[in-house]
């Protein structure tokens, strides 16, 4: 029997970004023995990279803002595919979650009368994003981290979780992983598990995501029997850096546009006026004059088109570059230098100033930035019950980017940090209640534990084989070329074949060196999840024969009414067991996809959408 150590808790939270921390704080506050397990050091999770702000209808800048308008903006931004109940809870509870952060020590920027300042962002009717310059994610994670430490929550850092463990009844009862520093295996028993493992962006070549975003949480939940929904909806943030190549994809906050930055093509045209969709025409300015008045006085004109939802702006930039009107390095120009004073820019956007100065040698107070779309966020994820965040796998709860539903087909900027807080807390409540009702974790399956360990170390016993870095590189290349911002049926079919081949290669990975802090091994154990989520996205994209939100099909360029009433749900089929998956996981060939109707909005919420139009 392979060796491993065992810990026993009531609630285990996988992932220590905003959602995981918030969930752990909540479960701990209810008296449960709670631990966080995370792949990196505490405080380094991807939340730290969020820049612009957290969306909450506090009404500090525009008193007429309220949850109903936020709900409406979120649903419209998501092209009505959102889980309406999640969108409702999110809009209603975000203000309390933000104020709570302040009680835990967060220091947001202030309005003139001393309240939390809010900034404009794409798709939000009112200035709604509470922020700290352009480093809001850092403030959020540090506040939650310090609260978690003060509350005495145990944190197991640099543990890579491989699989969820289930008892004889199939109830999730723990996780197995390994310590990255030592390479030793560890099992955490739990009465309930919260999955808060973040996103999937590292499967694309150009992404704003850190190395951690390999879809572990999506894949592990799927393997344990949870449904995934809406996986075809991947958000390409309109503004990533395009040069130098080594930082291509690095995020340029939407706050630049919220604070007055505009987009121009190589002809100097402010091209976004040419791309205003009918759905947003009534509320978008149709001249530069009108748009420019809006920044200072929202009643003097309609919103600038640079602040359309992200999917619209990303597609427009893509079209400009394709039409030959791009910048020298294949992006477009984002100009704040000619619009705001140097002092203003440095104060409002300090990390953007720093980032361009140090990495690209560009002074953004004097010159425009070159930007283009970058893989940023997955709207789809583990299907959850809105109120409890319970997944369709008993004992498993999910919150944050790993959960699907809230954002529908496209997420509005700022709605991610509020998502983490609102549903992180709800996951903590849901898991705590489930754990309290359970007498103890069920007995774990020693066979499953042993098989997981054996499969994880298998690459060390192969003398010759594939290099995991080559496989990752080829996967990123496949997803970027064939399942990127603009998709087409033949390319998606091609991607399916390439993913099959990559799975076969991943089964032949050979490793050298020991298990101690071995990044080659760490990457090899990430590949199973990367391949699985890539397959889910590809299958969803093949089935959604229309263009909507973060999913654009060249061969089906319009939204199709009936498709707007469907989710695509990915599951593991028992029949697909013929092929071998990576590291003992189910093969990606066993992923199935089924359409399911989108639940109808109740009348009172439907009215909100209509009346606010």
């Amino acid at each position, binding site marked *: 029997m392979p060796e491993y150590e065992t810990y026993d808790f009531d609630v285990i939270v996988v992932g220590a970004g905003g959602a995981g921390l918030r969930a752990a704080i909540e479960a701990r506050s209810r008296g449960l023995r709670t631990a966080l397990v995370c792949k990196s050091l505490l405080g380094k999770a991807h939340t730290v990279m969020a820049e612009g702000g957290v969306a909450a209808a*506090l009404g500090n800048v525009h008193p007429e803002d309220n949850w109903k308008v936020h709900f409406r903006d979120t649903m419209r931004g998501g092209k009505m595919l959102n889980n309406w109940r999640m969108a409702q809870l999110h809009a209603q509870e975000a203000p309390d979650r933000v104020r709570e952060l302040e009680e835990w020590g967060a220091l947001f920027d202030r309005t003139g009368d001393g*309240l939390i300042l809010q900034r404009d962002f794409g798709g939000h009717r009112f200035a709604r994003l509470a922020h700290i310059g352009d480093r809001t994610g850092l403030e959020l994670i540090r506040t939650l981290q*310090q609260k978690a430490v003060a509350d005495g929550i145990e944190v197991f850092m640099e543990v890579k979780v491989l699989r969820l463990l289930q008892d004889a009844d199939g109830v999730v009862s723990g996780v197995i992983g390994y310590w990255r520093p030592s390479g030793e295996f560890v099992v955490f028993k739990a009465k309930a598990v919260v999955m808060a493992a973040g996103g999937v962006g590292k499967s694309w070549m150009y992404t704003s995501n850190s*190395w951690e975003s390999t879809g572990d949480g999506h894949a592990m939940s799927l393997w344990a029997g949870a449904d995934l929904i809406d996986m075809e909806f991947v958000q390409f943030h309109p503004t990533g850096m395009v040069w130098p190549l080594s*930082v291509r994809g690095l995020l340029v906050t939407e706050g630049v546009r919220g604070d007055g930055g505009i987009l121009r093509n190589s002809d100097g045209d402010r091209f976004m006026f040419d791309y205003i969709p009918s759905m947003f025409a009534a509320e978008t300015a149709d001249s530069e004059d009108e748009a420019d008045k809006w920044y200072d006085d929202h009643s003097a004109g309609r919103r600038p088109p640079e602040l359309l939802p992200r999917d619209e702006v990303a597609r427009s930039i893509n079209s400009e570059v394709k039409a030959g009107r791009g910048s020298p390095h294949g992006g477009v120009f984002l100009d704040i230098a000619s619009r705001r004073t140097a002092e203003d820019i440095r104060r409002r956007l300090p990390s953007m100033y720093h980032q361009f100065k140090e990495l690209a040698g560009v002074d953004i107070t004097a010159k425009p930035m070159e930007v283009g779309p970058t893989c940023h966020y997955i709207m789809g994820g583990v299907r959850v019950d809105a109120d409890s965040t319970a997944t369709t796998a008993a004992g498993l709860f999910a919150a944050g980017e790993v959960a699907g539903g809230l954002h529908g087909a496209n997420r509005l900027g700022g709605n991610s940090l509020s998502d983490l807080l609102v549903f992180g807390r709800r996951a903590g409540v849901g898991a705590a209640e489930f754990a309290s009702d359970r007498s103890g974790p069920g007995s774990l399956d020693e066979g499953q534990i042993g098989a997981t360990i054996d499969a994880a170390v298998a690459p060390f016993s192969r003398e010759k084989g594939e290099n995991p870095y080559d496989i990752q590189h080829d996967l990123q290349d496949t997803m970027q070329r064939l399942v990127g911002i603009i998709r087409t049926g033949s390319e998606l079919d091609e991607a399916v074949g390439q993913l099959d081949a990559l799975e076969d290669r991943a089964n032949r990975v050979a490793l050298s060196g020991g298990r101690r802090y071995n990044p080659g091994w760490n990457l090899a154990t990430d590949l199973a999840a990367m391949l699985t989520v890539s397959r889910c996205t590809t299958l969803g994209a093949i089935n959604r024969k229309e263009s909507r939100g973060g999913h654009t099909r060249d061969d089906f360029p319009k939204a199709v009414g009936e498709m707007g009433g469907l989710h695509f749900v990915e599951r593991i089929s028992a029949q697909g067991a013929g092929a071998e998956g990576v590291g003992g996981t189910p093969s990606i060939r066993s992923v199935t996809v089924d359409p399911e109707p989108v639940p109808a909005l109740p009348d009172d919420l439907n009215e909100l959408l209509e009346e606010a139009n």
Partner: protein
Amino acid sequence: MAEDPVGTGGTDEVTMRLWRGDETGGSFTDYVMPSQEGEVVLDVIHRVQATQAPDLACRWNCKAGKCGSCSAEINGRPALMCMTRMDSLPVGEAVTVAPMRAFPILRDLVTDVSYNYEVAKRIPPFAPRAKTADEEKVGGYRMQQIDVERSQEFRKCIECFLCQDVCHVIRDHEENKTAFAGPRFFARAAELEMHPLDVNDRRQLLQQEQGLGKCNITKCCTEVCPEHIKITDNAIIPLKERVVDASYDPVAWLGRKILKRNKRSPAEAAATSPATGPAAVQPRTETNGIPAPEPATAAAAAPGAGDPSPG
């Protein structure tokens, strides 16, 4: 392919001299790589991993200067690998990358930074004052921008621990770690002390258990801070003044009484800290599960000899 990230193109070469080893010892190994335009040190390390040394240990996350994971000593100077451009280093010379020297080696470029997480537990946490009637009504605290900016400077900290690495109080004196919080946590304490809402009082603790007096303001920490936080001038020196005021200044004491600045007593503050105890920190515990080498072994294993000190 123009964007080949594993790098085979380019005519010029660069030699990366990387420390390989673990707590039992190690040495520098040279890797010759093709140069590519616009790269940072971390990019080249990634190419070394992808093409020559897949097991080369290197801790990193965001590659954007926002998470503070990839701290190392580049040509002897503590810096983030992701924010050090290759074209900022001398052309034609090998680029030396060593792990941070103040912490025990885990493997290659990765160190055990758990000391910092232990110190963090000893800082009495944020404790806000009660809301006023007006604040209860509006639902949130009122603070002026100018008042939050002082603490905001310290909250820019990305916890890269380069300031801890370069601080000679612990860099050269392992034994001081038991009673020294270090620049990162003086900045944290300053942030809380200057927080407009906080009522905890950490001054006596700083003086008696966290070694504030050991800092002799050489400003090495400020020099290496990638966030350009003025740790010495804006955090440590004001803290030293506050500690002195708390201990010796009767006028300040009277002022506090008159102005009703209701700081909690140091004993109360310490009691709210999640990890209380006489020593500031218990060094090298195994509570986080990372196997910790004995201090003596670690000191011997650190790539110190011949490694230029940046202090």
